[in-house]
């Protein structure tokens, strides 16, 4: 229960910070997506069921505060979580470069998925989508990737601090 409730609370706090602190940054191109970084972190460190539920809730919360009337992120965030879960055993997870590339590629994949859904589900063709992707979102994805190692390290330390004993007892078993 603790393994779900604390990350859920943290997720709500991260969503609030994303909607207030990050969005108040003056330059739009350097606004990182903390919720995406958190979802990728969940993918790397959480089991499939509880992590999947948390990723689903993260997506739902993003949709809740966004102008997205359909709720794309409720679908894309669990997909992203499971994509990271599938490949986590095949890569070396430590190090700045890997974490940067993993988050950058995850953000890029989600971007293309949202773009695909927007193009498919909109009744009329939407203008300015591709220029937005390349001029605004790509730099954002890049900044998100750059920040991910720092946040991963913070999440790790927080996790050790909160669940330290629990994890150790699990290892002992």
């Amino acid at each position, binding site marked *: 229960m603790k393994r779900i409730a604390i990350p859920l609370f943290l997720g*709500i*706090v991260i*969503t*609030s*910070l*994303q*909607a*207030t*602190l*990050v*969005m*108040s940054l003056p330059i*739009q191109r350097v*606004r990182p*997506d903390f*919720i995406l970084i958190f979802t990728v972190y969940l993918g790397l460190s959480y089991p*499939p*069921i509880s992590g*999947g*539920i948390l990723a*689903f809730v993260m*997506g*739902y*919360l*993003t949709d*809740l*505060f*966004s*102008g*997205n*009337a*359909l*709720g*794309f*992120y*409720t*679908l894309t965030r*669990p*997909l992203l979580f*499971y994509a990271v879960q599938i490949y986590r055993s095949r890569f070396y997870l430590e190090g700045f470069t890997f974490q940067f590339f993993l988050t950058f590629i995850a953000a890029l994949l989600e971007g293309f998925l*949202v773009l695909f859904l*927007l193009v498919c589900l*909109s009744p009329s063709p*939407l*203008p*300015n*989508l591709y220029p*937005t992707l390349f001029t*605004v*979102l790509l730099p*954002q994805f890049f900044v998100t990737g750059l920040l991910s190692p720092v946040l991963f390290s913070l999440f790790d330390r927080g996790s050790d601090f909160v669940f330290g004993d629990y994890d150790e007892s699990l290892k002992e078993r």
Partner: protein
Amino acid sequence: MRIRSLFFLRRHHLLIFIIALLFSALVLMSLRVKQRSGVEFFDALWLELCSPFQRTATFVIKTVQGVFHRYVFLVHLEKETTVLKKRMAELQEENHQLKEAALANERLRKLLDFREKVPTSMVGAEVIGRDPSSWFKSVTINKGERDGVRKGMAVIAPEGVIGQILKVSPHYSVVLLITDYNSAIDGVIQRTRGKAIVEGRGENRCQLKYLLRTEEVVAGDVIVTSGLGGNFPKGLMVGEIRKVEKEGHGIFQYAELVPCVDLTKLEEVFVITESFLLPSGEEREKEKEKKVKRTPGGSPRGK
């Protein structure tokens, strides 16, 4: 057979869970399209639960910004000189506070004047959060159903139109900005009275669509609301045309529009709690009754 299915479930429980989770996301999406009340209730519940965090975060950010503007930057100045600088810092602080008060006063007076000028019932609200995603454009405000705010209501500022209410909870609402891809409002070119639809284009830009090719439109023309949609009163400023695109064929021309309100710096907004559908449902009913009465042998019940 039942045992075999139980074994199957046990063996593939993870796969079944993943499929169920993704399927429920699709179902949620479908329910949102159909605008089912259950989803709206669930949204309102979570909005009510999470918005206080945003409100607190906004308060903390504003306080920290205030401290930085008022004190930390002044400490840097104090290092440069001694007593005079200290005195200057005090005066600057006082001056800053007076300026802040004057600016707030001016802003509030402007809002009050605007409220008096526009003869509609409105609710003032504060922006407490912005869209956490990069693709969409919305803001969260601190007024909800309890304050008379309903889905679809118009949101404006003294400078002009901001957007429409997208989601409502008892104390908070999400406003879809006019620059969002999903936003579309009815507009009129102020100079020529040509009608068009203003659609969001993301990144603080809108597009004027379905504007007849025969309409004369130039950069700098002002677009105002037509009042036909029913949510916005007629004549509110939407934006200014920046570029006109007349393609080689077709019956329509397109134009790029810059909103008159800087949507990246929103702090206070007004929600119009009155409908502008002309004639309104009640009026139509009354007119119908009148017509029935006027017709020979007709009665209000239509006997």
